[in-house]
């Protein structure tokens, strides 16, 4: 099927652009073939994208419907009339404002804790020489293998013994204990910074703290941004921890508030969808503005908790 002339021809066109492993003999038919593959690819990609986005549109559309309209078929994608009241109704049915503030507080503190403690540990593991460094680092990385559910019960018992159950403390204090994921991510980045920088600063009389604070922290912006975004997102979206640790209505976060809402107002889809929109909106806004870091972070580590 392939002649040797084709093989040499292929060097001029980019080989990556052809998806299917066959080629026609002339330049024009290669162009035609490429156009066919591209059109086909777009068709598949568009149908995939529709499946991805449709649930979000359905959420948005339902949140603007009059309660009775959710049972009208064929469905109205753009509701007539558009009902804004679901949002204030949802907001007052349960103290969603309070949930929102709780989520911001917990996710914010968690992010700060992880940035500070992980960057410090990563600095020690990548720059400072001390005995037992490799062993400690391996030990830390090995803990990534431990499923969360194993430590959940002893940690819960510990926190209940010191009277923290029913407060927000168990939800953010552990973030100030460092973390294997964040340390790993930042260490990978620190290792790409030439050690000469630190060494010459050292000769000029900089202390270890100054090297960290004025060289490594400013240079690791993108990695810090990626870690900040992931930590914030995980904390914001977490359900299991708030479910276990808080029960009082005014202490709930958005995720557990929504789940509570589902128990209370099950079947009131218009209100629930309005609540869902409010709970994902902040993360979506961050995503649109910082997409680059999201993508880099996922590509760098692949972790999705």
């Amino acid at each position: 099927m392939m002649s040797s002339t084709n093989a040499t021809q292929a060097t001029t066109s980019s080989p990556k652009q052809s998806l299917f492993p066959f080629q026609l003999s002339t330049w024009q038919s290669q162009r035609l073939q490429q156009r066919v593959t591209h059109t086909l690819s777009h068709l598949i990609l568009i149908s995939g994208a529709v499946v991805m986005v449709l649930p979000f549109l359905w959420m948005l559309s339902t949140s603007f419907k009059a309660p009775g309209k959710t049972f009208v078929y064929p469905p109205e994608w753009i509701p007539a009339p558009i009902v804004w009241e679901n949002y204030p109704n949802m907001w007052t049915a349960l103290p969603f404002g309070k949930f929102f503030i709780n989520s911001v507080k917990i996710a914010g503190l968690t992010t700060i804790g992880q940035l500070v403690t992980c960057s410090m540990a990563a600095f020690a593991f990548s720059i400072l020489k001390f005995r037992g460094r490799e062993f400690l680092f391996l030990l830390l990385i090995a803990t990534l293998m431990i499923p969360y559910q194993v430590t959940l019960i002893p940690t819960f018992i510990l926190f209940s013994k010191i009277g923290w159950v029913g407060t927000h403390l168990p939800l953010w204090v552990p973030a100030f204990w460092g973390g294997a994921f964040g340390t790993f991510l930042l260490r990978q980045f620190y290792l790409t910074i030439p050690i000469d920088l630190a060494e010459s600063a050292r000769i000029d009389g900089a202390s270890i703290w100054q090297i960290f604070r004025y060289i490594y922290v400013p240079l690791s912006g993108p990695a810090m941004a990626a870690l900040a975004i992931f930590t914030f997102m995980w904390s914001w979206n977490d359900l299991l921890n708030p479910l276990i640790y808080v029960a009082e209505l005014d202490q709930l976060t958005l995720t557990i508030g929504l789940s509570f809402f589902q128990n209370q107002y099950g079947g009131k889809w218009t209100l629930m969808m309005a609540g869902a929109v409010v709970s994902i909106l902040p993360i979506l806004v961050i995503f649109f503005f910082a997409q680059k870091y999201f993508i880099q972070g996922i590509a760098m580590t692949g972790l999705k908790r």
Partner: protein
Amino acid sequence: MQRSGLKPMRGELIWVWVFLGPTLIGLLFGTLGPVLAAIGISFTDWDVITPPIFAGLDNYKRLAGDPTFSKALVNTIYYVGIMVPVSTVLALLFAFLLNQKLRAVTWYRTAYFLPVVSSTVAVALVWSWIYAKDFGLLNFLLRQMGVDPIGWLSSTTWAMPAVIIMGIWGNLGAGIVIFLAGLQSIPETYYEAASVDGANSIQRFLRITVPLITPSLFFYFIITMIDAFQTFESIYIMTRGGPVNSTTTIVYYIYRNGFRNFKMGYASSQAIILFLVIMVLTLVYWRLQERWVVYDV
């Protein structure tokens, strides 16, 4: 691995402790301590309120004869066994399509990535609305095609597939981004050199693309598998493990035993089993990686 670094001078060693302090506390009190404690608790009967009673291997013996636990184990394997391969294959397909320097690639990538960043709780609520038996969107679409309505979340047959479909939908974007990064890191010159040497596109695909994409492939596969073994939120929101335990997974069962029934010892023994399963998987992954994966970029 870079082993060089700054050697702290006299009086500076304290900085090592300052920098590592929080992490060491976390390692001791947040991870290693609790793991040992979990093993210990798994040999007791404990409701947290009254003192623990030593129970020896009773919890593990009970696990072996607990039909709900076997059901949870089978359900978890069902979920992982379908969700992980299907989302890997689909993500790979979409990544290949996106790697053709098409127009609007960033738009597609944003669309596929939306479910990854959205909270599972919110997304699971929408899916339960889509899956609703009487007025749900999915049954409406199926009716258009002449299919009778299915009680997606209320039927023991369909609840698990429904949860799996949402799982695939929610994970695809992460896979696409990882594979796309893997594909784009393959230098163009490799393909050009191979073409000059007379390799056809099938050969280029099999000898360049496949070996160089396997690290990403393995990576995504194992990460998603570990993640899938721990699925909780979608099940909590959509089915609460029902109907009749048909979607009760190990993690959901741990939650129910530990935090609904406060059987901490019994829940811990299940968590230890989960730990062993995940550890074996990770070790298998490392061994296979050494043998199969080509790291040569």
